[in-house]
């Protein structure tokens, strides 16, 4: 089907292309490649947006439930949220460790645990002497 469509578009036998026809086929092919990828990208954006909003709703619901179930005790100082690590979000706290060493440690941990780096949360890395 595609053959006949492109054939009719180019008006030629495709195996025996002139330079002009080859240029048309190349440009058209690049456009098809780009077009397909752009549509796929839109689909991924939509699914991503759906999951982000679903996660946000789930988080909000969890927070609400936690607030409801928490005892009405004396207000305490807000606990700082654990920071997420590079690879997912947020920043890892480094104590006496260079960026390069930290990256190596994270890579080694990911490798040992057989878990992709972007699924791990590193909160802090501290040098132990």
């Amino acid at each position, binding site marked *: 089907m595609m053959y006949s469509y492109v054939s009719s578009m180019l008006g030629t036998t495709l195996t025996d292309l002139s330079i002009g026809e080859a240029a048309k086929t190349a440009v058209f092919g690049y456009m098809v490649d780009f077009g397909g990828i*752009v549509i796929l990208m839109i689909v991924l954006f939509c699914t991503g947006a759906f999951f982000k909003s679903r996660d946000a709703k789930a988080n909000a619901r969890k927070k609400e439930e936690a607030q409801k179930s928490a005892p009405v005790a004396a207000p305490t100082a807000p606990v700082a949220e654990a920071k997420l690590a590079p690879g997912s979000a947020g920043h890892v706290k480094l104590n006496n460790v260079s960026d390069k060493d930290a990256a190596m440690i994270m890579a080694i941990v990911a490798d040992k645990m057989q878990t992709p780096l972007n699924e791990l949360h590193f909160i802090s890395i501290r040098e132990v002497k």
Partner: protein
Amino acid sequence: MDIIQTLKDLWFDSGFANFASIDGLKNLIMIVVSCGLLYLGIVKKFEPLLLVGIAFGCLLVNVSNFFLDGASSSEALYHPELWDAFLDHDGEFYHSYGHVMANGGILDILYIGVKSGLYPSLIFLGVGAMTDFGPLIANPKSLLLGAAAQLGVFLAFFGGICLGFTGEEAASIGIIGGADGPTAIFLTTRLAPHLLGPIAIAAYSYMALIPMIQPPLMKLLTTKKEREVKMEQNRQVSKTEKIIFPIVVAMFVILLLPSTAPLVGCLMLGNLWRECGVTERLSDTVQNALMNIVTVFLGISVGATTVASRFLSFETLKIVALGLTAFCFSTIGGLLVGKLMYVLTGGKVNPLIGSAGVSAVPMAARVSQIEGQKANPKNFLLMHAMGPNVAGVIGSAIAAGFLLAVFG
């Protein structure tokens, strides 16, 4: 027993006697070429898993295949004339695997897996099981870099036509720019099987040479300020998204270009096995055992197509030159769109990740990481470059699907 006559017969039966003829001399040249490829694979570690097999297949076929009046010798491991008969529309043995099985050597039988497109598809099954599409799902914009890096495919296709190749041949040569060995083999066996040897060798050699081909172009096309850009971390991708991704991509891409079904279908099935969490045994098998078995068969049977009388031609040189052009322009295409994204995002995207759009997973992403770190030691581009890198696999499969739909 006439000892002298027996010795003479043994000599004329041996391959050494054939080196005196023109065809035999060509075989000798290919034996030297295969030794060169073995050196590159073993000593220089250029894609050794495939190149060593291809080189040894090349060696085997050229020490065993001496042409006698247009037909290969009966002891030959690979018989190109059987495959000519297989492709002859008007012949008695058109598309007859039985004829090949009955009359072929061991490499002819192994080559059936290449010819039927089985090996490249199985390799894609393993690649899918080994690939984490998380960075791509987290940043779908990186798909654009994977598409942009197919520029070389279409420019080399155009170049091929200019150099006198037919449409099918030019399409097969162009796909070298996709930097994806299985895709190149898959497309070539369907469109121009007689060019499989040079195209496969060019594709795998250039993939191995990516750390040498890409950095000069990356430096040429980007400023130091652009290379220093530190990118923000991607969002976290949920398990459900990772499971849905292969299903959505398979449905969408195959519906768009049905000819991509064997490659994209296997790639996404492998990935689904990896991500769904209930088929760990299957995922492990396709990543390791199956992948290794197919690599063994694929390497040696692709090497078998490098029969001297067909490989040593001016066309091979043109293919090697066009393949290099394709690789360079694919890198340039990715970098240029990377630069465009740098401008459009106000400097948030490091254009170096664009060059990773030439699939070659994960070599091209590693090159982006190394070059980024050279410009700014605090730069960690690897995860960002993996997005365009795996997008390149999908992009090259779509490019192959288009060319197959047009010329197949």
